[in-house]
């Protein structure tokens, strides 16, 4: 297949593929609340519920980009609110490092994002996804780390 490295950005009708890793206790619950409240947001982000943002291995992020994700979102409990006491603090440090590395090798900043969304923040969850999808749309398809398949 041809190298699609430099595709024109802002493709019309481009629907980004986004993987959203949500911690079970806060962000997934917040996402449930968004549902219960019938808030509307774009359907691009497919949720994967993990136990805790602290269990977010950097491999998951890299692999998602390798498998063709246009954006990756990690969301956990606010600092101090972790269901597992401090998992999100470990996550914060690790995700910070992953983000710096991705930026350094030249992946666009807006493709990887972390947020704190509590179980009560359905509105915030919808907003985070909405904004992320908008930002990723502007960037066009992610070709830099995507495996040619």
């Amino acid at each position: 297949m041809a190298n699609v490295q430099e595709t024109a950005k802002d493709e019309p009708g481009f629907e980004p593929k986004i993987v959203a890793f949500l911690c079970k206790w806060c962000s997934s619950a917040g996402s449930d609340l968004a549902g219960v409240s019938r808030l509307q947001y774009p359907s691009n982000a497919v949720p994967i519920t993990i136990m805790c943002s602290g269990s977010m291995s950097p491999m998951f992020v890299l692999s998602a980009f390798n498998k063709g994700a246009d954006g990756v979102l990690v969301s956990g409990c606010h600092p101090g609110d972790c269901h597992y006491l401090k998992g999100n603090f470990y996550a914060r440090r690790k995700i910070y490092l992953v983000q710096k590395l991705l930026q350094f090798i030249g992946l666009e900043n807006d493709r990887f994002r972390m947020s704190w969304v509590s179980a009560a923040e359905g509105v915030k969850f919808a907003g985070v996804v909405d904004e992320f999808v908008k930002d990723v749309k502007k960037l066009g398809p992610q070709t830099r780390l995507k495996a040619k398949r």
Partner: protein
Amino acid sequence: MIDVAAIKAHAKALLEKGTVRAVIGYRNSTAGLLAEPFVFTGPESVDDLIYGPSCVQNLALYLVNDKKERAHHKSDDARPVAVVAKGCDARAITVLLQEKHFLREAIHVIGVSCEGTGVVDTKKLARKLGGKHAVEIDFDGGEAFAVTTADGVQSLPAAEIMAERCLECRGAHPQLADIAFGEAKTDRALHTPFQAVKHKMKEEQDNRWSFWARQFDRCLRCYACRSVCPMCYCEECVVDSIQFAVLPDTTAEEKANRIKWIERSPNRSESAMYHMVRAIHLAGRCIDCAECERVCPVNIPLRLLNTRLEMEAFETFDYNPGSDMNAPTLTSSFKDTDPNSFIR
């Protein structure tokens, strides 16, 4: 100046008394200018031991290999092994001790101070010699290296042909040592640490990507970078294509369920994955011996990649790998004051 004779005498005495199993050090290589790591086991073999600017390799790796080999041969010789360690080698040993890879008492560290010396960068040397071929290199006082070519011996300023990591070294005098050789010279001119990383960070992101994409495209996946790294001591690497670490109780299910995070194909995306996973796994563990960059046959600037997160460890998290064998590691610890503003 390092008193090589004194190092030899010490090593010889250790082996004569039998207080150590072996001494890991350097000897002359038949393959070229650079020294060859060697495991000296008899007192008489120590006659071949050398120390000089050609001793570039990180000998901490050989402690790791020694552990593997002993496991293979089911060796029960409980005596420690001695190792010649420059500042960076000693830092690597500290990280390995921090990760409980060995017991402190199993290692006798023969520290060699690089303050005032450092090791050679063969590419810089080749540039300097402009086509002439160096066959020998030695210290020439504290500021210069004596280089022998077909035309004879010449003295070159050390700072001009020294490895970049030595110029930026923040711990040239081994902190971890049972005995240390070489002077503590504190007025050594240092380059600012992380200057190459910081320079690269100033580039436009798209240009940075073009740069790295070219590097990842060139990667051979010979895994020399992994193989030479003392921190890459995992039983099984994420890039290995089969289930590798197997115990008698490993089930068929476990063998079959190997995750293929990275394909073996040497193409851009897979090599990018490989190098990024390595960089992430080295965060807070890379002690900047730059061996990965030196051994790369196609010159991928791996030191640049791997020190990016070291810069964060040092500047953001106040974490200096290889400085404290009792501290928790970078990623298995946190502070309440860690950056938070990047999170929405």
